[in-house]
């Protein structure tokens, strides 16, 4: 095995172009588990932690640009106000030790349907910045990034450089079902983001289909039916839950049955929208 350690982004892209089968490693919280258990023996590890810019975030033209290697603990500590949905999800990842190393870039690289970053990125309409030496930068909308179980739109010679997210325009919530309040791979999860300026609600489902996905019909239903100045109608809330559950295509596995997941998605959808709506009306009244 080779160990490649570029110190600039250009060197990193060159290394990936020259050796597309090199496996990028940032926090290592997915990669090292596979190596320790001999699940994976890549010809090379491409360590990105010596490229300083990947571990920083900035506010760029009104959008947050979060470097691929920024750890969850930084997102929780520094971006919780601007990106509450993503920060709430980050806070549920693993343990403090895992959050000090694990990153959104790594979560995207792994593209697990259960990854906790994905639902809030989908709900907020985030975009993933990827780049290759040969073809340059591509901006991939989150909802076009996930292609299948642990498969993404990232090509073999590309690396993830950053994720771009608008600061929250309205309340955002993330909720996750698991057996404990830590160290839990989601049985299923759900994120909601209100965009009051556009009279639109974004959604994201986790661990409830082969890929993280939006509940598009549910979003369209709310865009058409919501009265943004009134309390939520119970019938509307129930229908929203049903449509979100309908967007799921879950499986039975050790963590839960498909039926349970569909039911839980409806509950999480109603619950998170209720919390968000409560905040929305409070802000309007203030």
């Amino acid at each position, binding site marked *: *095995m*080779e*160990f490649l*350690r570029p110190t600039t982004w250009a060197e990193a892209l060159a290394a990936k172009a020259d050796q597309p089968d090199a496996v990028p*490693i940032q*926090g*290592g*919280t997915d*990669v*090292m*588990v596979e*190596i*320790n*258990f001999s699940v994976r*023996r890549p010809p*090379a*590890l491409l*360590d990105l*932690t*010596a490229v300083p810019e990947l571990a920083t975030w900035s506010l760029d033209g009104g959008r947050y640009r979060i470097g691929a290697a920024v*750890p969850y*603990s930084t997102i929780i500590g520094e971006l919780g106000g601007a990106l509450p949905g993503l920060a709430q999800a980050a806070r549920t990842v*693993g*343990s*403090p*030790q*895992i959050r*000090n*190393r694990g990153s959104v870039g790594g979560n995207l690289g792994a593209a697990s349907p259960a990854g906790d970053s994905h639902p809030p990125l989908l709900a907020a309409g985030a975009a993933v910045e990827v780049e290759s030496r040969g073809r340059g930068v591509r901006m991939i909308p989150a909802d076009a990034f996930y292609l299948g179980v642990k498969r993404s739109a990232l090509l073999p010679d590309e690396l993830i450089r950053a994720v771009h997210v608008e600061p929250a325009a309205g309340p955002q919530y993330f909720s996750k079902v698991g057996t404990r*309040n*830590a*160290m839990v791979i989601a049985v299923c999860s759900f994120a909601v983001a209100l965009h009051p300026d556009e009279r639109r609600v974004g959604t994201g489902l986790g661990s409830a289909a082969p890929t993280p996905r939006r509940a598009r019909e549910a979003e369209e239903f709310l865009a058409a039916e919501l009265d943004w100045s009134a309390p939520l109608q119970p019938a509307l809330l129930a229908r929203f839950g049903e449509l979100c559950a309908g967007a799921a295509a879950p499986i039975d596995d050790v963590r839960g049955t498909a039926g349970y997941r569909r039911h839980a998605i409806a509950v999480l959808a109603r619950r998170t929208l209720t919390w968000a709506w409560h905040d929305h009306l409070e802000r309007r009244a203030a």
Partner: protein
Amino acid sequence: MRVTFTVNGREETAEDVWEGESLLYVLRERLGLPGSKNACEQGECGSCTVYLDDAPVCACLVAAGQAQGRRVRTVEGLAERGLDPVQEAFVETGAVQCGFCTPGLVVQAHDLLERVERPSDAEIREALAGNLCRCTGYEKILDAVRLAAERKAAAR
């Protein structure tokens, strides 16, 4: 490959490191620092917790090469000038039974008390959520962290 980094304030070099090797393996098997424990090798138990620069991490999930040029502090490093108050408190409260989880818990609790002077019980539980103990039932561990917090606050 060769990896050079600072461990407990001293520069150390490990030779013939396999590229897929973990920082935990290098510490225990190549540098003679067996304090950090290897229990799960998958980030689940926290018994391998060390500081990497200033953040506690699972050493089993850090590739050795990623530590090149960085600072590592292990449980041994906390005791260089006598036991740290966290270590003393673990002994005094009976928070140690078989002791396998102790080094990781000590480092993780040390980090908590560096950041939060008087943590609430909820904060202690959240901070220690990634450290498993199969013996104590955790109550004595919580006692130890509360005692260490009191002593550190009094010494400030």
